[in-house]
């Protein structure tokens, strides 16, 4: 977990170049790791063991949190780690352990299916990159108007977006009910 340190109050302007370099380095570091781990989730080296995928996914999420920090979304980085990596993925791990499914016999993947999948995924990426390519060439980030800290985000969340926020609360209630209904051994 790399936390981007807020520039100290007494930091002179000469330092900004260094900071930029640092950011560049961190970006590539996290970006490459994100993608590598992401690939490993999909094409896990131990194919028969989904637990490995979970761990790689956790690592992907952590690296993404790093990218979030680089983008000044501090609160989200924390949430990403706490909720996503820390809770959601643990659920995955639990289920994998519960079901003990690693002995699952896998039919061999057919070459056509493989090729087709790669083709479709490639097509989607190509489509995305075409849109990106057509967009203006790498616009630099402007100075952030507001930092994505807890306070500002909370303010927006509870004023402008309070309705979706409340809808989400209903959604979570639904999820709770649903999990209880589906998960309980025998309801009476």
């Amino acid at each position: 977990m790399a936390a981007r340190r807020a520039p100290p109050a007494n930091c002179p302007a000469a330092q900004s170049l260094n900071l930029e370099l640092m950011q560049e380095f961190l970006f590539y570091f996290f970006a490459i790791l994100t993608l590598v781990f992401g690939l490993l989730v999909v094409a896990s080296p131990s194919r028969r063991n989904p637990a490995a995928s979970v761990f790689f996914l956790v690592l992907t999420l952590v690296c993404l949190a790093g990218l979030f920090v680089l983008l000044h979304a501090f609160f989200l980085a924390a949430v990403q780690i706490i909720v996503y990596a820390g809770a959601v993925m643990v659920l995955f791990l639990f289920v994998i352990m519960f079901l003990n499914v690693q002995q699952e016999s896998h039919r061999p993947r057919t070459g056509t299916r493989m090729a087709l999948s790669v083709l479709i995924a490639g097509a989607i990426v190509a489509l995305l990159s075409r849109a990106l390519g057509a967009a203006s060439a790498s616009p630099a980030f402007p100075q952030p108007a507001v930092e994505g800290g807890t306070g500002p985000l909370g303010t927006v969340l509870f004023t402008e977006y309070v309705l979706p926020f409340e809808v989400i609360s209903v959604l979570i209630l639904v999820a709770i009910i649903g999990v209880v209904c589906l998960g309980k051994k025998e309801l009476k």
Partner: protein
Amino acid sequence: MTTLNPMTPDVQFALYSALKIVIAMAVLLSMVAYTVLAERRIAAWIQDRVGPNRVGPWGLLQPLADAVKALLKENLVPAHVRKVSYWLAPMLVMIPSLLALTIIPFGSTLGLQKMVIADLNVGVLFTFGVAAMTVYGLVLAGYAANSKYPFLGGLRSGAQMISYEVAMALSIVPVFMLVGNPEFSGWIADRANAWHPLLANTSPLNLNRVVAYQAGGFFHWMLFQQPLAFILFLVAAFAETNRLPFDLPEAEQELAGGYNTEYSSIKFALFFMGEYANMIVASGLIVTLFLGGWTLPWFGLNHPAATFAVGLVHIAVFLIKVVAVVVLFIWVRWMWPRFRYDQLMDLAWQRFVPLALVNIMITAVVLWAQ
């Protein structure tokens, strides 16, 4: 100090940080070692035994002997384990507690340096993020062992930690509601304030702010301001660190040691140390959040240090408070019986979470009324 001046601020920052990290690690690890000893001694004392007293005076070298033993033992890897996970798990247990250490302000300032490794604005969120990752070590250990009891232990610890994390996070929300209230924020923003250099550009989640809030006097300690939050947090901390009365994941009588059953030698030692490190970090957090951190309401110790010496005193105050809480941890272990697992979960979801929510609401109402 003067020799450092020609260096750029960047390099200075890196250097000081490295220094702080090394020292904090050293202190933590030695504290771990001696907490183990203390635990054994206190246990012996409570149970009217003698405890370790052979190695060194009063057994003070016992931790060293233990370490040597752990390192020299044969590194046994059972045949049926999942190798990669088996190797990873002990490290994963140790790393988060070390990471969590980075944001705890263990002193005010020494010279120009803040006595905190990373002064983060997201502060306490970082702690929770790191705490959230702790669970992987335990679950993975249970999974890696590929046998029944460790497996159950891993599951138990995972469920327990996630559950209590919720309670824990909710319990401290009122604390930050107080810290973030406009009146106090105004006080912080006051440039004439002695605290200003320490707290400039911080958000309410910054832990130094919590300390500053509590510096107002003895009864400004969150312990008194938010007693319910304190109790909830304390109990949740016991559960998070898998300490008795919540040590269900490793309950020897039921699970033959739980997730670490299949471990031995240095890997087992890592689990062991990880647990104590967690405990110490948790104590540090409790001290910072509820017990005034490095401040004391007397002798002018309640604002950032002006001199080097006072800075050292602050660190000492902090350490003493931590040791006191650690002793509390140890004491509780030998005083309370273990919970049943369903009781444990019920306590979290049916008592703590609602209580914490009520506490948040009450605090909100009180603040609103002001």
